[in-house]
């Protein structure tokens, strides 16, 4: 006989079961739970209400847990709202604000925990947007950072620039400390991977001499620039719109800005794999916004730290792929874009901030990606609907031929989009842009189909990537397997799922 036995009889056990069941039924009837499966199903999966965890109950319409007297409630005049200044005299407001500035300065001088100048600068970056996005070249945002005279905001918080006016100590760190700091701020600001480089006679060759707003010189035949980027021995960057009798302007970069922060601006992979489509286009546009927002936050941070910087919106002044490859964020691939080790080329761009904040440099990387393009892969070229990507095995020093027929140009001027001086597969950017224009999408088929554009769920990717980096022996095999396994652009039958499956909530930076 077993050493373990129950002393409860079968009769008592059944009685217990019945009591428990009755108790459960009574509890269920008493609480406002789901009364049937239909109600349960409707509550959790009708696609209208948010999909809350099972233990959250739904109440009646207009009946929150805070009780409301609908007869007593009325519209509130927010115009007269005040949580500070209306309750004090003007003199007392000024006295308290001066005390706040003094306290802030003292905290910085004593380097109190999370109240140093660096932390204050981060706070400035977080508040950088307020109203306008400002200028991603100079980082000036009227609401967050303008300092003019002695006026005080008649509100409880003291504008962040006041501590700079009051003589806060400039942040000082070693280049390595600054690099770690900038990586933390970049992630906060909305960037992904971060690298660093310096501005010297070589890297200066990857700063545009001029740029265009994309419209002004669109229909001119001459190589005219809308604005010019020049270096001058000045203290701060500025824009001179009186540069020429016409509407040309110059954007001045101080010569002392010799260090660079280079960061990746990602885009939503899941949306961008629906290429080419308007959903992919939405992802592209949002990522450009994200890059400009990140740039503004970072410039605000650098200025609040006591240094200066110039940014790089979507149109310049730094060549994005060049700075990304030189600083070690990825390698240039066949599709002409930067291929990153983490998400392949499915990024929006690598942005660069020039600054006088002391920073180290990071070196280029070799993950076998450029080599993979050279030895085995033509997937992007095969998939390109505009026939804009060369299928030649080896890269070349040449630029796109003026006789290239893709896109049916009237008179192709490849010197307007290909810069000589590096060995690559020259992208016929007219053929690429022509497809954008004629398909009413932002295409991105090349990026979506690239073998390195992979999400991080299947572990096979982390098996393949190291092998590609270490040897070319399996490149042909991996290229063929990538095609056979169906990796690349998302199957079209899933494209419309976007409208029924909202994006996961992933935080404020992506």
């Amino acid at each position, binding site marked *: 006989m077993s050493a373990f036995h129950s002393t409860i009889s079968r009769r008592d056990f059944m009685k217990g079961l019945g009591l428990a069941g009755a108790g459960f039924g009574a509890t269920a009837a008493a609480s406002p739970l789901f009364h049937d499966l239909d109600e349960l199903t409707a509550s959790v999966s009708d696609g209208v209400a948010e999909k809350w965890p099972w233990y959250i109950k739904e109440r009646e319409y207009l009946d929150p847990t805070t009780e409301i007297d609908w007869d007593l409630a009325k519209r509130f005049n927010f115009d007269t709202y005040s949580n500070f200044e209306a309750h004090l005299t003007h003199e007392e407001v000024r006295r308290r604000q001066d005390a706040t500035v003094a306290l802030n300065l003292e905290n910085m001088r004593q380097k109190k925990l999370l109240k140093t100048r660096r932390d204050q600068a981060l706070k400035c970056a977080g508040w950088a947007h307020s109203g306008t996005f400002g200028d991603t070249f100079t980082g000036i945002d009227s609401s967050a950072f303008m300092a003019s005279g002695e006026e005080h905001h008649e509100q409880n918080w003291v504008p962040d620039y006041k501590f700079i006016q009051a003589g806060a100590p400039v942040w000082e760190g070693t280049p390595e400390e600054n690099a770690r700091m900038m990586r933390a701020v970049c992630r906060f600001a909305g960037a992904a991977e971060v690298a660093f480089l310096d501005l010297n006679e070589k890297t200066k060759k990857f700063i545009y001499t001029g740029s265009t707003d994309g419209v002004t010189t669109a229909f001119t035949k001459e190589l005219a620039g809308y604005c010019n980027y020049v270096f001058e021995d000045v203290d701060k960057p500025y824009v001179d719109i009186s540069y020429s009798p016409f509407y040309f302007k110059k954007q001045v970069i101080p010569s002392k800005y010799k260090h660079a922060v280079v960061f990746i601006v990602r885009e939503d992979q899941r949306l961008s794999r629906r290429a080419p489509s308007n959903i992919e286009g939405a992802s592209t546009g949002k990522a450009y916004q994200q890059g400009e927002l990140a740039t503004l936050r970072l410039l605000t941070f650098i200025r609040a730290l006591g240094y200066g910087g110039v940014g790089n919106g979507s149109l310049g002044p730094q060549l994005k792929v060049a700075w990304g490859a030189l600083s070690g964020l990825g390698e240039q691939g066949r599709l002409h874009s930067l291929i990153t080790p983490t998400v392949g080329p499915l990024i929006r761009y690598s942005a660069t901030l020039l600054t006088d904040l002391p920073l180290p440099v990071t070196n280029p990387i070799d993950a076998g990606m450029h080599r993979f393009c050279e030895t085995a892969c033509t997937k992007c070229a095969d998939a390109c609907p505009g026939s804009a990507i060369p299928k030649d095995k080896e890269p070349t020093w040449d630029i796109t031929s003026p006789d290239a027929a893709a896109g049916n140009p009237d008179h192709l001027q490849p010197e307007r989009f290909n810069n000589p001086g590096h060995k690559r597969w020259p992208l016929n950017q007219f053929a690429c842009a022509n497809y954008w224009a004629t398909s009413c999408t932002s295409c991105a088929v090349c990026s979506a189909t690239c073998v390195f554009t992979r999400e991080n769920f299947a572990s096979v990717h982390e098996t393949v990537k190291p092998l590609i980096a270490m040897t070319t022996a399996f490149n042909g095999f991996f290229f063929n397997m990538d095609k056979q396994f169906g990796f690349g652009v998302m199957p079209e039958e*899933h494209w419309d799922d976007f409208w029924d499956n909202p994006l996961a909530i992933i935080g404020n930076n992506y």
Partner: protein
Amino acid sequence: MIENYAGTWTWSTLLWSFIAFSLGVGFTLLIGWFREHNIKTAWYDWMLGLAGLALLLYTIQNIIGSLMEIVPKSALMFAMVTGIPSLILLALAWRLVARRAEVT
């Protein structure tokens, strides 16, 4: 299969917890059964079996991962390219042990 609410008990967590639990129970029962029936095993039996098991787990992970990445064809390919060999290895290991048990 990607949840919008990143709670603790995601489907992935539940599945791998179940697999881990099953493996623990399975190995315990298997070794107990070997002892009870006085079955001898060789080191290469275990090597083959563990290789097959590792490949099976790799297959399962990549099938699930491929479905999560919305690449259904890849899931099917993994089932064939690595899943079938894993079952073959496991079957081979089982046959080796069974054959030795029959002989003894």
